[in-house]
């Protein structure tokens, strides 16, 4: 009985330890400790390597430190003890100069290697015999406080949710439209700033299907202070096998062909055409540069405005008073819209989908 209890206790503590360890890794959709792509993995390996080296340093320091503090207390040695006034030691100075140099070298070499590896975007412009680019390129434009993703070769544009194929390098052109932001998908790989005056280029690769994640998406963040709602400038990333991605692209391209059949439009769409279309497009065909986020995939999204729950209530609240939820954003408020109209618009927007 007692043995059994002990076993149970052991099992429990083991489980607890594992839980703590896993908790220490954070959440899969946004932790750099659970990398879901080669770039993130390279960076994670550097993290482990540097942590190990640094732990060695810390351990050495702490050992000397603890021994010194235990052995050489005045309370032990007596109030009148005058220690020998040692000047120093050339050998020791040499040791703790050379050994750190070696440790630093161990870190510096892979650092330089990965810096060049991750900075290599020469394949970005590679074209096949027909002149099509070989790799997927996404133009990212960061705006106060949302993200626009254009696929220039595919002629489509979307916002707030980046959709990418798995297991290939995806190249990014990054720029900011207003003030500086920074593009970061923690679980997939390190960030790059979106400057206002120049395009920054880098690549990431996505090796995990976002379907398996808690919310079905990876989390993306703005990592550069950009104004009041910097904290809310989130975006999401959907990853999928190449075939699925191609289907998605085709569906996106098809949104441009829908002609508005005046007789068939619902009330929501009609209201949308009156109040919203000036800033928001519902066709995914096009280029970057819209005033507001493209809404062609609105119904497929995980969040409203990047961070609010994806349901009609939240959407209505948002439309009524965007400033309340995302201070400093550029959307006008529609506080005077009737509840009925809001319902209709919400209904319509929630129905905008290329995946369903």
């Amino acid at each position, binding site marked *: 009985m007692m043995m059994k209890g002990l076993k149970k206790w052991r099992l429990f503590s083991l489980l607890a330890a594992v839980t703590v360890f896993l908790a220490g890794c954070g959440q899969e959709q*946004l932790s750099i400790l659970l990398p879901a792509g080669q770039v993130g993995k390279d960076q994670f390996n550097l993290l482990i390597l540097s942590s190990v080296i640094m732990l060695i340093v810390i351990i050495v320091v702490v050992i000397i430190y603890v021994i010194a503090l235990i052995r050489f207390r005045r309370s032990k040695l007596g109030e009148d003890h*005058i220690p020998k006034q040692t000047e*120093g030691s050339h050998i020791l100075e040499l040791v703790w100069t050379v050994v750190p140099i070696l440790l630093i070298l161990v870190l510096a070499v892979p*650092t330089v290697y990965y810096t*060049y590896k991750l900075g290599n975007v020469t394949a970005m412009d590679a074209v096949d015999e027909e002149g099509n680019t070989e790799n997927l390129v996404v133009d990212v434009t960061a705006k106060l406080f949302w993200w626009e993703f254009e696929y220039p070769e595919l002629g489509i544009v979307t916002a707030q949710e980046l959709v990418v194929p798995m297991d290939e390098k995806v190249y990014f052109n990054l720029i900011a439209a207003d003030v500086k932001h920074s593009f970061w998908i923690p679980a997939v790989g390190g960030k790059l700033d979106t400057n206002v005056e120049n395009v920054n280029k880098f690549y990431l690769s996505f090796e995990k299907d976002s379907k398996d994640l808690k919310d079905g998406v990876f989390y993306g963040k703005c990592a550069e202070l950009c104004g009041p709602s910097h904290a*809310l400038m989130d975006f999401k990333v959907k990853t999928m096998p190449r075939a699925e991605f191609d289907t998605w692209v085709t569906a996106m391209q098809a949104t441009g062909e829908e002609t508005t059949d005046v007789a068939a439009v619902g009330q929501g769409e009609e209201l949308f055409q009156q109040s919203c279309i000036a800033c928001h497009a519902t066709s995914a065909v096009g280029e970057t540069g819209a005033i507001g986020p493209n809404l062609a995939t609105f119904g497929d999204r995980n969040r409203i405005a990047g961070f609010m729950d994806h349901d009609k209530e939240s959407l209505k609240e948002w439309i009524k008073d965007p400033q309340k939820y995302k201070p400093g954003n550029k959307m006008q408020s529609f506080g005077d819209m009737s509840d009925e109209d809001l319902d209709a618009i919400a209904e319509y927007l929630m129905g905008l989908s290329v995946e369903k």
Partner: protein
Amino acid sequence: MSSVAQKRGFGATLWDWLTTVDHKKIGILYLLGGGIFFVIGGIEALIIRIQLLKPNNDFVSAGLFNEIITMHGTTMIFLAAMPILIGFMNVVMPLQIGARDVAFPFLNSLGFWMFFFGGLFLNVSWLFGQVPDAGWTSYASLSIASEGHGIDFYAIGLQIAGGGTLIGGINFLVTIITMRAPGMTYMRMPLFSWTTLVASAMILFAFPPLTVGLFFLTFDRMFGGNFFDHTMGGNTIIWEHIFWIFGHPEVYILILPAFGIFSEIIPMFSRKRLFGYAAMVFATVLIGFLGFMVWAHHMFTVGLGPTANAIFSVSTMAIAIPTGVKIFNWLLTMWGGSIKMTTPMLYAISFIPSFVMGGVTGVMLGSAPLDYQLHDTYFVIAHFHYVIVGGVVLGILAGTHYWWPKMFGTMLNEPLGKITFALFLIGFHMTFLIQHWLGFWGMPRRVFTFMDGQGWNLANVISSVGALLMGLGILVLIINIIITSVKNVRVGNDPWGDGRTLEWAIESPPKFYNFAQTPLVRGLDTVWIEKMEGNKSGFTAAEPVQDIHMPNGSIIPMIMSFGLFIGGFGAMFHAEEAWGLPLLIFGLFVTFASMATRSLKDDLGYYVKKADIERDLKQKGGRN
């Protein structure tokens, strides 16, 4: 101005402090000013942690939060840490090198008043309700886009305060170069004086870029300049470069004097000579030098290209080497010593592991590809608070307890000091250790709130509770200061009993002329050498008692700084208010007219008569 003690009214005392050119009094003014700003910055820190206590908190609004983080960073760096350290330099460095004052007492006073009015200017922004909100780095695109006058307060306030710092830096450099006592060679200088020298040299070369950058910002925001407006051909990255060419050395300007303080405390309370003195000096100089070579490691994610990133990665890692040398030398100083756990020493020994933690995470951040992940996350917050709080603030607290008796002639209460220490240290590690993981878990810095369900809640609670403990620690320190001042138990020359450097061979607090006779320095830790050879006073004079030349006090530095202060408002409002331009001109006129007055009016100082000094010596019943 004679040394005869006399009762004076409040007005006369105030006038004395406003016009003082005595380095010790100016040092105390710096400590007082810096201390007040430290408390303000601390309150701002607590507000930040309350806001981040739980997800979706609305303790402060998004805009206000950005103002608070900006002012917290700016205040702590420019208005708290720097002035407090400069305060210690002012009080202690001339005493350590056996000088009677700094090289330019008038400029010393000017430096203080410029810091004071610059800091005041920045904080007046709260009264206007238009507060800097682009982060302490004020990156250009955001700082240009920011509405209202918030960033104007930042640009002009820092300009004024920065000018004061530059003046202070030159002053300390000259003091150390020309005014060391006989026998005080460079390689006999106490480490704190050495770090003062190197930090001052860094101020000299790092602050002019800040001056230029702030002028650009001022021009762009207030006078139609286009430096950072890319639609007009400008470039925001220039600001980032200029800011960090200043900003990175600034970090070392802060940490080196803290190193210096610990390099005084550890030998004293280990009762043992600093191990590897020459190596420590060399490491200090090397850190100062390398500090200018690494600025772009703050910009790895800006897109400078792999070559620049690789170079700056390696140069950044190189700084770890001299820093490591210092750590090991401190350890070996304690090794074989006789360690006494006083409050300053507790800070010193807790500094070593704390700072090592901050140092190693610095090396990790120095690896560019890894920095792509960690940059602008809570990992960075954790890192630089480990260096700045774990290094600079612990140094400041240690120095406060250590030199308090020298500055005020009475000891801070030791048990209360140890309570402050315990609260502060535990709070510090609680606040910042967990933040490394917040960074790993994807939490960006400078976020006014965070959504639930990202796994960050508990860590933020822990962090906030830690901040509260730090706040309590500081509260106990303030109580300690009040109690100590009320009790006012006087102490002798060397209250710690193990003094090694010259400041411990003279009265606490020292006479306004510091040394009745200039000391003769016979080696490193000269006071210790004298004591070991049986000279109880620890002091050998290099000259007979004679008349001492001292500078006159002056109100001009304060008026000059005040001119800049009001001129700043003129610059800020010149575009929208009719009185703006006249006020700007008037302010600058006040400043330049004061300068001309100073220049035209001969000020030759005065002499303390030999008879007065001899009387002082007799009063004490002995010599020095």
